[in-house]
């Protein structure tokens, strides 16, 4: 067996420990005997969370990344509390401060950095230690010292308005101190923000009770035995009881310089993270300088650790680090910030795209050079951050429409004009209709979209291309389309708009579909108009609606979803996606008994039994003993839910309970089109509530954001926020009002996303939330009546079967 090589790591911070983890992950435990110097007495912890320890939202033991047992388990000798003091490169020895030698074959320097202390009078006492009340903010020990000193004090100053300084300020507020941030620059977070964004952040900070003093250079820390205040270079002073210095960091390169390695701002390394002077010494993290840059953020350092581990273990001798593009996404004092690249234009030709809404704390700025993103700042609204970070990182060309870079626009972009579009381009993907076919149809005399759609079948599948078909028809007609009045009708067979139709139905007390045709369409039936009328009549009359089966589409006639071969699928109701072993067993029994060819989990967290014969449906339902899940109708379908606060460690709200209440409230509701709902226990949105017809997303503070008009089918659209509700009950109230408003005003087969875009979210919000039309009470009442009229259609079907309804083929008599 070959002798293991000795690997010594100087530094047990995030970079050092992560590098060792990466080495172990590549089987380095077999190759190396590993020893680590760590001048802190503990295992490795997440320094980024120190401010959270200071503000009390994390306990100390919660931020450990590698607690002490980890080292033992992995055979690592941790020299805890030992600071490496020197190196003898020729003898390959590392020494601690007491002169104990540690031999190495390979050495990794990961000494990190320390706080930079600007020149200020009165920082230290004669013994060289900080004056009581002066602190830095870098270690757990610093945290403890600040917390101990802050008790009972009145005010604190943070010198330095960078990210760490602001986080420290937030932590200090926890001790009921009056906190002031002092910065030498003209705005906060100068590394990541420009002046305008810095100003918005300043306002936010001040709203949260932190004072901000800009363009102030601290000349002296006042007080003889302890901190009493600050004096600035302009002569002004500021009283305070404690000072936290957070004015930047300084790489710890002394040990490298002491043994003759090249050091500039940090220890100079090559693309393998090796010292340029010594093939057996590597440096990684904040202490390393690669291609002229030192990095202070974790993402680049993680990349460095991987390359180093690949190289040192021989796993990939070609591994190379090429430097990182700096993009950060963070939350300061509750304000979300994303920043990448440069913050101000540098070249004359740099293009700046900007949006600013200081009142709402929203700011977006992009710097574009030769069509590519070289810098960006997003404040308040990070919806485009993922896309932009990727474009920045990969240096991909940006779309011409700059507006799309800043905002999610509702419609997909038009890529080419219709002139440019080739005749063969397929417009309707369901029915395979090309632009050429549509144009030919117009030339043959069909002069409006509806006529073209009927003749070519374009737009009659999923319907998502209807808009484009209409535009092509208009273009092909040279703008001279013949208006087809029926486009404004609720259904084509009755010449009335929806409000007119509702009025007429109420006025003449029309309770069945044939009564509507008789009275309002001159007795002329139109097959395609029947389901729309049935849906509307049910919405208007609820329990008093006179049902005519032939008016229903086959799915709603027999409460199952027709499949391509004429068989049916059955989806029982599973509210909230919560089932039980007994229920699953029953479903399994039914599936076997009726030879179900395919059992599939649906996207709505239910179970679909596909391929059932029509004749078996009533027996299947009886044996299931479960109500219908309405997976076939133009109705409320289901409410998908994540695990929520019961089990999920991120859960902010009880999304399951809310989903159950939603299902109980709206089950079986007829509507212009299907309605798919979702509830998410936190903004991670695992249940995709933001792209549902209606969704509720829990946010901090026990509140729920209600989204409407989302879609993730043939059309993809993020919902608009209707309002923020304070409780489950309020969610139900506003959802119900919107549903009723949609039921009364949408055209038949108009999904919520089309409706919300057509009517406008402001109008809907005014009616539903602010009750601008004084109809809220009535909407609530209609919802309650619809709820009371709910009946499970499956139970109805198997308890009182209608003759032959479910017989697929009747025999002849003779």
């Amino acid at each position, binding site marked *: 067996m070959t002798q293991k090589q000795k690997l010594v790591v100087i530094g047990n911070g995030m970079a050092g420990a992560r590098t060792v983890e990466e080495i172990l992950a590549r089987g380095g435990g077999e190759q190396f005997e590993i020893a680590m110097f760590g001048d802190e007495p503990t295992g490795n912890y997440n320094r980024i969370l120190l401010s959270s320890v200071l503000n009390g939202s994390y306990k100390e033991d919660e931020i450990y990344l590698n607690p002490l047992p980890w080292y033992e388990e992995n055979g690592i000798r941790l020299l805890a509390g030992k600071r490496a003091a020197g190196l003898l490169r020729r003898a390959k020895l590392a020494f601690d401060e007491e002169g104990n030698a540690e031999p190495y074959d390979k050495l990794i320097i990961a000494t990190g950095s320390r706080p930079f202390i600007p020149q200020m009078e009165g920082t230290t006492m004669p013994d060289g230690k900080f004056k009581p009340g002066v602190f830095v903010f870098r270690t757990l020990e610093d945290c403890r010292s600040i917390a101990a000193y802050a008790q009972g004090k009145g005010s604190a100053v943070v010198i330095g308005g960078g990210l760490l300084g602001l986080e420290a300020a937030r932590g200090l507020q926890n001790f009921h101190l009056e906190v002031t941030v002092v910065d030498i620059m003209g705005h906060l977070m100068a590394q990541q923000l420009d002046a305008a964004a810095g100003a918005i952040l300043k306002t936010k900070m001040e709203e949260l009770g932190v004072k901000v003093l800009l363009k102030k250079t601290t000349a002296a820390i006042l007080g003889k035995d302890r901190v009493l205040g600050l004096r600035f270079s302009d002569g002004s002073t500021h009283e305070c009881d404690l000072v936290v210095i957070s004015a930047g960091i300084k790489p710890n390169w002394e040990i490298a310089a002491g043994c003759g390695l090249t050091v500039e701002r940090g220890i100079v390394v090559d693309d393998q993270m090796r010292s340029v002077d010594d093939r057996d010494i590597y440096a990684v993290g904040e202490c390393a300088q690669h291609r002229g840059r030192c990095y202070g953020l974790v993402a680049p350092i993680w990349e460095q650790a991987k390359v180093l581990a690949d190289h040192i273990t021989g796993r990939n001798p070609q591994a190379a680090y090429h430097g990182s593009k700096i993009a950060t996404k963070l939350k300061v004092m509750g304000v979300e910030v994303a920043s990448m690249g440069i913050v101000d234009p540098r070249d004359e030709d740099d293009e700046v795209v900007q949006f600013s809404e200081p009142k709402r704390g929203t700011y977006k700025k992009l710097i574009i050079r030769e069509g590519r993103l070289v810098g960006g700042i997003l404040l308040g609204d990070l919806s485009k951050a993922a896309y932009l970070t990727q474009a920045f990182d990969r240096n991909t060309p940006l779309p011409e429409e700059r507006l799309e870079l800043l905002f999610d626009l509702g419609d997909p972009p038009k890529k080419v004009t219709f002139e440019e579009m080739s005749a063969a381009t397929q417009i309707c993907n369901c029915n395979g209709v090309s632009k050429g076919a549509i144009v030919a149809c117009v030339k043959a005399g069909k002069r409006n979209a509806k006529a073209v759609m009927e003749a070519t079948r374009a737009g009659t599948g999923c319907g998502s291309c209807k808009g484009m078909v209409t535009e092509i028809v208009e273009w092909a007609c040279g703008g001279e389309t013949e208006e087809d009045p029926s486009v404004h009708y609720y259904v084509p067979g009755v010449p009335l708009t929806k409000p007119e139709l509702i009025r007429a139905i109420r006025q003449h007390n029309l309770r069945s579909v044939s009564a509507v045709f008789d009275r309002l369409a001159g007795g002329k039936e139109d097959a395609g108009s029947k389901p729309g009328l049935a849906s509307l009549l049910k919405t208007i009359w609820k329990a008093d609606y006179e049902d005519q089966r*032939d008016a229903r589409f086959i799915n709603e006639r027999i409460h199952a979803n*027709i499949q391509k071969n004429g068989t049916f699928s059955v989806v029982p109701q599973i509210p909230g996606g919560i089932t039980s072993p007994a229920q699953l067993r029953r479903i399994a029994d039914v599936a076997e008994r009726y030879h179900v060819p395919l059992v599939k989990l649906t996207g709505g967290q239910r179970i679909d039994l596909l391929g059932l014969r029509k004749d078996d449906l009533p027996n299947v339902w009886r044996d299931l003993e479960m109500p219908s899940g309405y997976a076939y109708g133009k109705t409320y379908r289901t409410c998908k839910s994540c695990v929520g606060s019961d089990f999920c460690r991120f859960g902010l709200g009880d999304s399951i309970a809310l989903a159950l209440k939603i299902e109980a409230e709206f089950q079986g509701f007829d509507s212009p089109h299907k309605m798919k709902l979702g509830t998410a226990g936190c903004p991670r949105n695992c249940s995709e509530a933001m792209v549902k017809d209606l969704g509720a997303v829990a946010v901090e503070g026990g509140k729920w954001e209600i989204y409407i008009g989302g879609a993730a089918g043939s059309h993809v659209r993020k919902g608009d926020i209707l309002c923020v509700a304070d409780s489950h009950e309020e969610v139900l109230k506003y959802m119900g009002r919107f549903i009723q408003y949609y039921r009364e005003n949408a055209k038949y087969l108009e999904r919520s996303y089309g409706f919300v875009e057509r009517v406008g979210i402001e109008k809907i919000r005014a009616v539903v939330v602010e009750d601008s039309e004084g109809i809220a009470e009535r909407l609530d009442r209609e919802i309650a009546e619809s709820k009371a009229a709910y009946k499970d259609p499956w139970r109805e079907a198997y308890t009182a079967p209608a003759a032959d309804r479910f017989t697929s083929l009747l*025999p002849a008599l003779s």
Partner: protein
Amino acid sequence: MTQTMTGAKKVKLGPAAVIPPGEGRAFAAGGEKIAVFRTRDSAIFAVQAECPHRGGPLADGLVGGTVVICPLHSWKFDLPTGAALFGDCGIKTYPVRVDEAGDIVLTIG
């Protein structure tokens, strides 16, 4: 089943009331599958049971006036003539009537 002079067969399908107004039902008769519809004004029509497009069950379609719409992809047919109103190809029709006893009588062949 009655054989007629021309070789056509007459088949009794049972009382017209088996088909609710405005709906259709599929029957097996003389080795063929046939969809029979009764409109809301009590006219009766018989056509081939399967849609020529993708074999959709026409008896499950929506009926309005004398038009049926296939439930799968909305092809439309005129019941008395079998002509396609929406789609590429028409359907076969069969003579059918309700006799004095109220039974549906279909002629095949």
